[in-house]
């Protein structure tokens, strides 16, 4: 015990305290309830046996070494893995109490409420305005389109930079701007949850900071789940952190497993599992 405390007295990650403290556990509302989830490609399991609850209006980070199935896991929440042939999953994910994984569930309805921002910015080859407006139009939110677009771009901290050139192509923006455009696009359709799969990994530090700031400001309206390979980022933005790692099973199979899931502060200062401690102190990964 004392060894851990000694090592932990000088945490290698400084946990910023500028974020507000989390509400007490019993006042948190569950958005996702994951039970015994296995995600399998063909014959290989990407993740196995995941149990966790994700809470409303928090930023939840998923960290871990490469290959531990973080991206696969997050894509289970909006049924994006359906697009990959040979994928199947077992276990359940309940969204506000409703199962979203069964064969009778329409993925289109799921994705309507649970949006996603991808690792590489992927704006449509349309104008900046249309990038944000297209989703609204198609999904039936046609009234006050201009206002919706402005609000989304403002929330994504992009409005001031593009308000004079809304007709320009979305592809004419820089990488960081494109990613914020993708965020605007996602929140313009008013989802409940925004999933982010390593949203800043292709961006420079300044753009990264802008996006982290965004999450901070918007989490009162949305629930964020973010996958990141950058521990410092998790420490900066996340309220809850889930640590995944690679486990080995019988017959040499390797799969991802949820090792520890707790308040960020705890994960980075006093983790319960040795594997978590090894990872966050940089001993491996």
């Amino acid at each position: 015990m004392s060894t851990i405390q000694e090592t932990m007295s000088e945490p290698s990650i400084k946990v910023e305290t500028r974020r507000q403290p989390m509400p007490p556990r019993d006042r948190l509302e569950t958005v996702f309830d994951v039970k015994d989830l296995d995600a399998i490609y063909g014959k290989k399991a990407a993740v196995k046996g995941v149990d966790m609850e994700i809470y409303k209006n928090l930023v939840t980070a998923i960290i871990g070494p490469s290959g531990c199935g973080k991206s696969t896991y997050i894509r289970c929440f909006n049924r994006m893995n359906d697009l990959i042939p040979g994928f199947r999953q077992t276990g359940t994910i309940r969204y506000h109490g409703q199962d979203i994984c069964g064969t009778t569930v329409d993925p289109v309805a799921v994705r309507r409420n649970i949006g996603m921002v991808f690792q590489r910015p992927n704006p449509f080859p349309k104008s900046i305005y249309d990038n944000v407006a297209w989703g609204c139009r198609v999904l039936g939110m046609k009234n006050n389109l201009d206002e919706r677009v402005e609000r989304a771009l403002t929330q994504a901290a992009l409005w001031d930079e593009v308000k004079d050139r809304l007709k320009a192509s979305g592809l004419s923006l820089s990488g960081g701007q494109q990613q914020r455009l993708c965020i605007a696009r996602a929140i313009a359709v008013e989802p409940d949850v925004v999933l982010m799969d390593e949203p800043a990994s292709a961006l420079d530090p300044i753009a990264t900071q802008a996006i982290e700031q965004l999450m901070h400001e918007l989490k009162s309206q949305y629930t964020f789940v973010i996958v990141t390979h950058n521990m410092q980022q998790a420490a900066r933005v996340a309220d809850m952190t889930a640590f995944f790692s690679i486990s080995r099973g019988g017959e040499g199979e390797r799969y991802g497993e949820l090792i520890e899931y707790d308040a960020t502060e705890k994960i980075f200062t006093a983790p319960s599992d040795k594997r978590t401690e090894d990872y966050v102190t940089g001993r491996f990964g």
Partner: protein
Amino acid sequence: MSAHDLAGPAMRIDRLPRRRAVNRLMELIAWLAALIAIAILGFVVYSVARRGWSELNLNLITKPPIPFSFTNAPQGLSNAFAGTLVIVGIATLMALPVGILVAIYLNEFAPASIRNAVGIALDVLAGVPAIVIGIFVYGLLVVGGGGQSGIKGAFALACLMLPFVARTTIEVLALVPNSLREASLGLGIPQWRTTLSIVLPRAIGGILTGTVLAVARVAGETAPLLFTSSLVGPQTSWNPTHALQTVPLAIFELSESPDPKDHARAWAAAFVLLVFILVASLTARWLAMRNARKIAGR
């Protein structure tokens, strides 16, 4: 498969049922279009195969045609098969070296501007209708200089093959990794030697595939031969300095005849032609696969 609308806080239904219906409708239309198209295609292939197969017999290849025959004496199209072999063969001999040389020049020597310009010229050449090529060769070679011949017909076919052979060879040459060229040049071997001894052999597989495909395509061409090698007699000849009958032209003439016996021979010849083209295409694909595996394995 009933869809399950999510209910609860922040769940939206919007116009989802209607959008789902539109999606399903579009899916059905696409399936329908595909089915119609498949049915038509299948019907054509089946039609030709069935009639051709039933009329098929060995006489087709071994016996010459007997013009104005009112008896049931066995006749075939031996002159056409012989002529096609000769003319397509000569056409390949004409088009292949030129095509390869053009490709070598474009890929190994030419600056970008010339590459673009010649590329455009090749694409334009590929778009010239076959019948215009026929008129061209007619005006160039037949009118002034001594009438039709198999060689002139072969030249017309070679004009058709050239852009195709050149294009596929360029693509194959471009696939040869630059590291190979650099290794050879680095040893002090001159460029011409590098190209001929290192690059070209590496690309041979792809060139062969492209050639087989070009042959398959051009074996069925009729229009260019109308003006260059069509005034033929029934005897089987292998001499390309005379006009030779070809299989597609024979089918063409037989198809216009009112005699059902002629139609029978036309179906049979069409069947043989189709089978040849099919076999050639499959061979080309097999060659391409084997080639790809060889390069990957090396």
